[in-house]
């Protein structure tokens, strides 16, 4: 079962189908296959069950964060809707910990991480895919090996390295180890490799130098993979917990994840506050994901992301 034959046989036949057959209505799915009503009902029921299991906890957290301090959040049976919804808890979080500063720290690190990963892995990926030079195989090997080494085993050495560089307890120190991940370099390399070489050869004949070929021709053709790299870089950085926990010791420098853990440790008695804090942390991500999910899922579907 090899990939080329599979994609050759499925792709051309599946694509035209949806547009043609979907309109015929009711009981065929988007691929044009007939679906019995009972199967459809069972499918939607199962989907709803999984929906409750996966999204329910977030909704419950949102509901808790909107409940006022006079409302019993421990009632049994549980009350799913706040009787008097209030945003009071959100202002109280900000009074308790500098949550907006923490969020801003996270934004700074995540934005820098996106830029460094996109630029660095596009450059290195292009060199590996499109340039011939002595040592190219060795460089590829370095990236592959680095990808295989588990980060969790490196944290102590990274911690001492950061101390030696004097970058402990700084946001730069949080950023650096993941600034250009080798997985992203290899993703970009594969994206560049899948471009046909002829276009670049033509540009070369027309006198375009390597920067022009890279910026004008190659880079615009791999936007999809670049978007995936950007999303992964943002989420990875925004979510990172272990490394910032180790490198940051000064509460004023905390990122949002570390700050939330701190909030939990300090004020575990008021779940409304913790809930409001977690919603502040997760809402931007869900919004971002909701906006980008179309690109995201298509990028994944192309097989651009594996592992």
């Amino acid at each position: 079962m090899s990939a080329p034959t599979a994609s050759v046989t499925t792709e051309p036949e599946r694509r035209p189908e949806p547009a043609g057959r979907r309109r015929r209505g009711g009981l065929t799915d988007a691929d044009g296959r007939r679906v019995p009503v009972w199967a459809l009902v069972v499918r939607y029921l199962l989907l709803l069950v999984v929906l409750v299991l996966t999204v329910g906890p977030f909704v419950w957290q949102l509901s808790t964060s909107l409940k006022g301090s006079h409302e019993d959040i421990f009632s049994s049976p549980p009350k799913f809707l706040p009787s008097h919804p209030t945003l009071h808890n959100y202002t109280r979080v900000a009074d308790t910990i500098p949550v907006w500063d923490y969020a801003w720290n996270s934004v700074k690190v995540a934005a820098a991480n996106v830029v460094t990963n996109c630029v660095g892995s596009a450059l290195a990926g292009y060199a590996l895919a499109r340039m011939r030079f002595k040592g190219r195989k060795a460089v590829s090997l370095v990236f592959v090996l680095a990808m295989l080494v588990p980060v969790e085993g490196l944290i102590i050495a990274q911690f001492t390295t950061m101390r030696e560089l004097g970058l402990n307890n700084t946001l730069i120190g949080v950023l650096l180890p993941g600034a250009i991940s080798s997985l992203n370099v290899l993703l970009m390399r594969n994206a560049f490799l899948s471009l046909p070489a002829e276009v670049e050869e033509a540009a070369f004949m027309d006198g375009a130098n390597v920067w022009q070929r890279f910026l004008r021709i190659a880079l615009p053709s791999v936007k999809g993979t670049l978007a995936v790299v950007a999303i992964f870089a943002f989420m990875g950085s925004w979510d990172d917990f272990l490394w910032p926990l180790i490198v940051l010791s000064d509460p004023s420098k905390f990122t949002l994840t570390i700050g939330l853990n701190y909030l939990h440790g300090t004020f575990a008695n008021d779940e409304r506050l913790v809930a409001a804090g977690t919603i502040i942390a997760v809402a931007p991500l869900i919004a971002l994901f909701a906006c980008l999910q179309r690109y995201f899922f298509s990028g994944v579907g192309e097989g651009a992301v594996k592992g």
Partner: protein
Amino acid sequence: MSSSTAPGAIGAETRGRTDGPVPRGERPAGRRAGRRIGRNKWFSPWLFAAPGLLVVCAFSLYPFLSTVYNSFTDRRTLIPGHWVGFANYRELWHDDAFWTGLRNSALYVVVVVPALVVLPLLLAMLVQRRIPGIGFFRAAFYTPVVASIVVVGLIWVWLLDDRGLINSLLEALGAGKVNFLGDQWLLLFCAMAVTIWKGLGYYMIVYLAALANVPQELHEAAAMDGAGAIRRFVSVTMPAVRSTMVLVAALSSVAAFKVFSEVYLIAGPNGGPAGEDTTLVMLVERTGTGLSGRVGYASALSVVIFVVVVVLMLLVLRADRKEDA
């Protein structure tokens, strides 16, 4: 690995190189052009690769080598330390905390991996058919992956709390309360459940990509021949996604062995009652960091983690090859 691989994934490289730039009999010309394009100024490829190489060498390869070296020293955070040979490893052997950590991390693999190999596949088959609204469900099922692990941990601590949602539901149903966050084993299994819950969506996507490559005609042909849904699953779907299952097993077993955040957040920084829920990475974090951190000892622990991870990968990949042959 290849059945799920559309163009662009690892392995596409060879395809691109052999048949990509060679259109109908123009091989010599194409090749010459390729070679001329390849002849850059000697420094420009290095200029392109430099930032990535620098970061990867400084923060992956150098730390790896220094971890191995440090594991043979008694280095502490503020004290350089001396060569002590295998003393750290001997101490590990007699350290109860190490065996507790190894037990918990191994148990994590044993429980989490089968669940993450099977459940996301079922989920992927559930969301595979493009019925109305399926995009919403796919995105919604992915939300736990998107949410950061700290948020997920805090949400579940609240759900599992003595007076939290799950217990009040249990009470309302007439069942008794369960002290999820007080018992050593329940704590660990709750952390595992959270890991599975958070991983479902991620591996669902991996399987969706694999399922998209299963030729539809095979299904239809099998259906014509009278094969039922289960038969079609076993004879058509399973063989097609088998290599993806191996990939998922490899990825999830390595991830499960290195678990930190879930257990740290649910069992607390000290790893539950009497530290009985500590995992290996938690132990590394606890012994190796801070101003009095035992860098040498924690490095020896890290080396053990490296070795186990490599062995896990080899085992899984070998299982793959055996079935191929």
